[in-house]
């Protein structure tokens, strides 16, 4: 009896035997993971140290002369406005496109169509910027004039209409095109995961295709659509080049979508100002970058939270 207790104590003390190769390999894998944490800590530290001078500088020395908040607030406004419009345009379209690919398109071509939409995501943002500037902006002038003529009583379309078309509306539409594939990909994924049994149960009850989708596919995919939209929103908030190229900025706070005086966005402002900036101006731009990071971080966290909450629910099925 006493010998077995001794043995057990001895076993608890003994370290597991690990080969040298195992130690090296697991050590380097762990090291890589830790490196990522170090880099992120670096991101935070360096950004804060570069932003610090702007935070403590007197208001009159910040560009614009009215302090940090007065400089950054219109940019935050522009960032949120353009991203929200993009989201409002892209989400319904993305849901419809995802539905088309998963439930309407002939099965043989569905995969190819999905790939085609994925290609949209692969186009570099600078190309969208050039396209928005050269094609969409001029093409939008007619549409904007029409909006102003018939819907001018809504403040959004108050005008006067920009003759170049380089408006926040066009910038938002370009953003919508850019986030469409992201939202579509997530929505497509959850629609495909709808349990076949639910769909067949609905069809067996005599539902038409649309009724089946409304009864089983959409409720099942709702949180997926929301989180996909949030991921798209995160992308739209941080997108730089498309906005910087398309938008003709004047740093105002206005809901007027089609005039020639538009609020800029944080990312576009950094890209436009940074190459010519020195000293405190750089610090100011880094500070606005931190604000942008905080906003996108919040949005992405929310998206992850929704995805994870859904995962817990679906685990029971």
């Amino acid at each position, binding site marked *: 009896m006493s010998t077995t207790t001794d043995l057990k104590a001895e076993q608890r003390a003994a370290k597991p035997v690990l080969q040298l190769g*195992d130690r090296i390999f697991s050590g380097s894998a762990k090291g890589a993971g*830790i490196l990522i944490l170090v880099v992120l800590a670096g991101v935070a530290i*360096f950004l804060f140290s570069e932003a610090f001078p702007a935070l403590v500088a007197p208001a009159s020395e910040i560009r614009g002369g009215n302090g940090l908040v007065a400089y950054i607030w219109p940019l935050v406004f522009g960032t949120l406005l353009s991203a929200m419009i993009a989201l409002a345009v892209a989400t319904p379209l*993305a849901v419809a*496109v995802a539905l088309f690919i998963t439930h309407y398109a002939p099965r043989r071509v569905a995969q190819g169509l999905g790939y085609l*939409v994925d290609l949209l995501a692969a186009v570099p943002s600078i*190309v969208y910027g050039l396209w928005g500037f050269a094609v969409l902006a001029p093409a939008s002038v007619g549409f904007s004039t029409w909006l102003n003529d018939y819907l001018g009583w809504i403040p959004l379309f108050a005008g006067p209409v920009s003759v170049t078309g380089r408006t926040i509306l066009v910038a938002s539409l370009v953003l919508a095109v850019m986030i*469409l594939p992201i939202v579509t990909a997530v929505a497509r994924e959850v629609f495909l995961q709808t349990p076949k049994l639910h769909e067949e149960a609905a069809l067996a009850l005599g539902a038409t295709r649309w009724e089946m989708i409304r009864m089983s596919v959409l409720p099942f995919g709702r949180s997926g659509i929301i989180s996909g939209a949030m991921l798209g929103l995160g992308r739209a908030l941080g997108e730089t080049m498309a906005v910087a*190229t398309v938008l003709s900025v004047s740093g105002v706070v206005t809901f007027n979508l089609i005039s020639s005086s538009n609020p800029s966005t944080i990312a576009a402002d950094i890209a436009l100002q940074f190459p010519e900036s020195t000293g405190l101006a750089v610090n100011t731009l880094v500070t606005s970058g931190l604000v942008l990071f905080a906003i996108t971080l919040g949005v992405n966290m929310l998206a992850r939270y929704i995805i994870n909450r859904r995962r817990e629910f679906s685990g029971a099925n």
Partner: protein
Amino acid sequence: MSIDTQRERSPERELDTSLDAMPVIRGQLPRWSPWVGLVAVVLIVGGVLSATGLSIGLFAVVSAVVYAVGMYTASRVVEGPRKATDRLVTIIVTAAFLVALIPLVSVVYTVVSEGLSRFDAEFFNSSMLGIVGEGGGAYHAVMGTLIITGLAAAMSIPVGLLTAIYLVEYGKGRLARAITFFVDVMTGIPSIVAGLFAFALFALFFGPGVRMGFAGAVALSVLMVPVVVRSTEEMLKIVPNELREASFALGVPKWRTILKVVLPTSVAGIATGVTLAIARVMGETAPLLVTVGLATGMNLNPFDGRMATLPVFAYYSYVSPGVPREPSLERAWTAALVLIMIVMALNLLARLISRVFAPKTR
């Protein structure tokens, strides 16, 4: 009392009425009706609009609306409201898909048609050194893009792969959870912020105003690492545990099991993910704008001063073309075309990899 009200609302009653309203044999639009209807609408609207002055956009919108309303009405009369709604939704969803294709087609068409005019030998074998007006090329920008992306890939792929291996094969407990969380945070970093980080880091060592290719590569790495980690993690997770156990049971140590069994099984997916990650960062403009800037001449040393890259080259050629404007705009489009071609080629390569390297069953 309560029983009565319940019966009033009971689902059976609703079902009864709807079954009455929907006999098994009833009116149906012929199978060819959607297509014939579409052709008819297109012809009629086209005719009316060409008489008043044709605009393609207007033509498409009016046709779609007329078609949707017409089909809905016809179906409602013949087939009943439920079927009519179904047809209407089908039309809307299909139309939405076509709308989504417009930008893709338009972008590709614009870039190809505008970019082809300077898609010549000179574009690929000369830089912009001493060029004013016509001529010149983007050889230096192509090389810069390849060097910086290559450096970024060389830094991100090992770190990303090893981190994913740690998370899937070794990571348990607080460190793994922290890494997972912060990789999530990293995926949300806007590209311009990654550029600012790299700038801040290098400004600390080399003073403000520093511009070098390597800083751009660091910025791109910050964007690339989380993508590589995520996609590799997904791929490693779908390798069945049974294969790991089979290998362990043969007396193979864990690290050899990972190297020789787990990685080969998932290599197709991993390579695809890595290729797509490269394609994604290759098109990034903003971080390079703040860290690398632009140079007119060839610079092959990523540790010394400004370099040209395709996206930044395209951007500056377009927004500040100088005088005369035309040659510079043409160069911008051609640079965009080359960039798109490289990115699409990488995407196709990724598809190819996933097909060629996938485990075979026959």
